[in-house]
């Protein structure tokens, strides 16, 4: 039997399951749960940091006089990295390193973050030509640069934001990644281990 016949069969089975006049009508109105937008930005930043650190993530706050480039160069040296791969972002133009094209051999991947969610400690990365997905995934260390204005209170607020930035979801990018700390598993006797497939260290620099 081919896919077309199966489709007809499944649809027929489903449409006979419930009488048409007994069906609930499809609702079309968008409903957003309380996005708690009244929370002030410094509280959001504190919440994000607390929650990201709770899942073994690391957070650096960029001081007023510190330069982002300086901070990242320092981190790369500290980590003893040989090769670094990063997104094509203005803020990374003057790094001491050039971006490694072979991601599988890079020691660190540096990305931006389009949003962050305070109450879960989650980074949100959108895919695009200048924002490859693998930069935050293949290298053993992921560093994300987060602008504090982009932190939203909760996941409901995030979906409201995505609606604004993606024309009511009509133009979604191919992949939206939520990242909450380093890769983890508890598959061996419930022992928590990090870095099973993705990065074992997830570092955020808040600017």
């Amino acid at each position, binding site marked *: 039997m081919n896919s077309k016949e199966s489709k007809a069969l499944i649809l027929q089975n489903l449409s006979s*399951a419930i009488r048409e006049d007994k069906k609930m009508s*499809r609702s079309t109105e968008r409903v957003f749960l309380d996005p708690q937008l009244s929370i002030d930005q410094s509280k959001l930043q504190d919440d994000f940091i607390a929650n990201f650190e709770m899942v073994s993530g690391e957070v650096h706050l960029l001081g007023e006089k510190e330069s982002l480039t300086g901070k990242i160069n320092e981190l790369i040296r500290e980590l003893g990295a040989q090769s670094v791969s990063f997104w094509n972002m203005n803020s990374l133009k003057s790094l001491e390193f050039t971006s490694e094209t072979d991601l599988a051999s890079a020691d660190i991947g540096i990305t931006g973050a389009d949003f962050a969610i305070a109450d879960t400690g989650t980074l949100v990365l959108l895919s695009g030509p200048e924002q490859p997905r693998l930069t935050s995934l293949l290298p053993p260390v992921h560093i994300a640069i987060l602008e504090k204005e982009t932190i939203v209170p909760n996941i409901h607020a995030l979906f409201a934001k995505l609606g604004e930035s993606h024309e009511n979801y009509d133009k*979604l990018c191919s992949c939206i990644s939520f990242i909450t700390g380093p890769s983890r598993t508890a598959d*061996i006797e419930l022992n928590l281990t990090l870095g099973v497939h993705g990065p074992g260290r997830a570092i955020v620099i808040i600017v």
Partner: protein
Amino acid sequence: MITERIDFKKNSVEALGDPKLKKALVNFTDRSRSSRKKAVSEVSEWEELRSEARGIKEEVIENLDSYLLELEKSVTRVGGKVHWAKDAEEASAIVVDIARKNNVRNVVKSKSMATEEIELNKHLISNGINTVETDLGEYIVQLCDDHPFHIITPAIHKTKEDISKLFSEKFGVPEYEEPQKLTNIARKELREKFLSADMGISGVNFAVAETGTIAIVENEGNARLATTFPDIHVAIMGIEKIVPRFEQLSIFLSLLARSATGQKSSTYVSLITGPRREGESDGPRQFHLVFVDNGRSDIAKSEETRESLYCIRCGACINICPVYRQVGGHSYGWVYSGPIGAIITPQLNDPEKTADLPFASSLCGACRDVCPVKIDFPHVLLSLRQKVVEKTKEKADLPGFMEKIAFQLWSFVFSRPFYYGFVGKTMVFLQYFYQKDNELRGLPYPFSKWTKEKNFPAFSRKPFRKRWKEKYHGKSGITK
């Protein structure tokens, strides 16, 4: 597919005889229960989220035909391809066909219960396609040629000593016992598989009808790798996984992680909308979505059990279940275990071969209380039991007849205080030879059927009613 009748009792007896397993089960259920409880208590609007999710699922299943068509349209619009499979065999055949047409040799898989259900690995491997499970737990299970023990933590029945020995045998490494070292070995082995894979297969946690987006929730990053690195991504979904609108994902994502593992959010959530776009340097070039019915549209027909399709596969019902805690996952005989297995397995398979499962519950209702979409498990179980009993009634067998007589007798005695008192007093004498430590053991037929499995509490010389009377001298005894 289930080929032999599932003998829940026999499987349970085997599981109960394994002290290592018992320890693992107690440890695992204790921990998952308390972390879930904590995570849920942090969300003040938890009950509203549950009601909201339940309402959405009710609406989805009632309109599933039109939502499936909408999803197909959306996926096609963003450059993906939808395939319809009426049963397990067809679903596997579709995936094998995609692989063949694209000369695929190596497949990496992330965890998906739907692919377990359709036995996809078996089909791919028998067609000469290398297929590797990449979730650490599933990988361990696959290396042992075993079956997952739990839908969230598949290898929870293996000790670190087991795993250490296994890795040593398979990869020629020393027998490390530190879980972190074992994890690092798996990372190295599996990373090579990812880099040489030409097809990635994933499950689907939610599929959004209006946008054609699929959501995949995980902690390890293997699903991200499997859906980003290879040129072809095939996602397999049970047809009930639909969420109508994109923003509704926020409700389901909030419920899923907390219910499943007690996390505020799982480490990774990927919202994938079609293949890679122009200008992108990674992501699959082909995106296929396979709709698997395999009995689900039949469940939609039954008003009594339709809610089985609301399940989001979080596993909270399994972790809370007092029966699962004792007998473990393999006793349920198929890919889904615990309360969800007890209701889903009989509805997706031959009801005669799975007739034990609706009875694998004490009907305590703990599963209903933790379920994020409020599935009324006891109600569904009773309805399924009724079907089993009606079937056996047709056969008019002797045990069924005896049971009927026994219950009629029981009902007669228990509704008449005089007979109730009389039987109690008589039993005090009759029980003399069978009594030990205030329990009755080894009773003669037909009561032996009871005492073969558990002891019966002895009848008291001084019944409760008499003690009550003595203590309160006829007063009610209820303090105000």
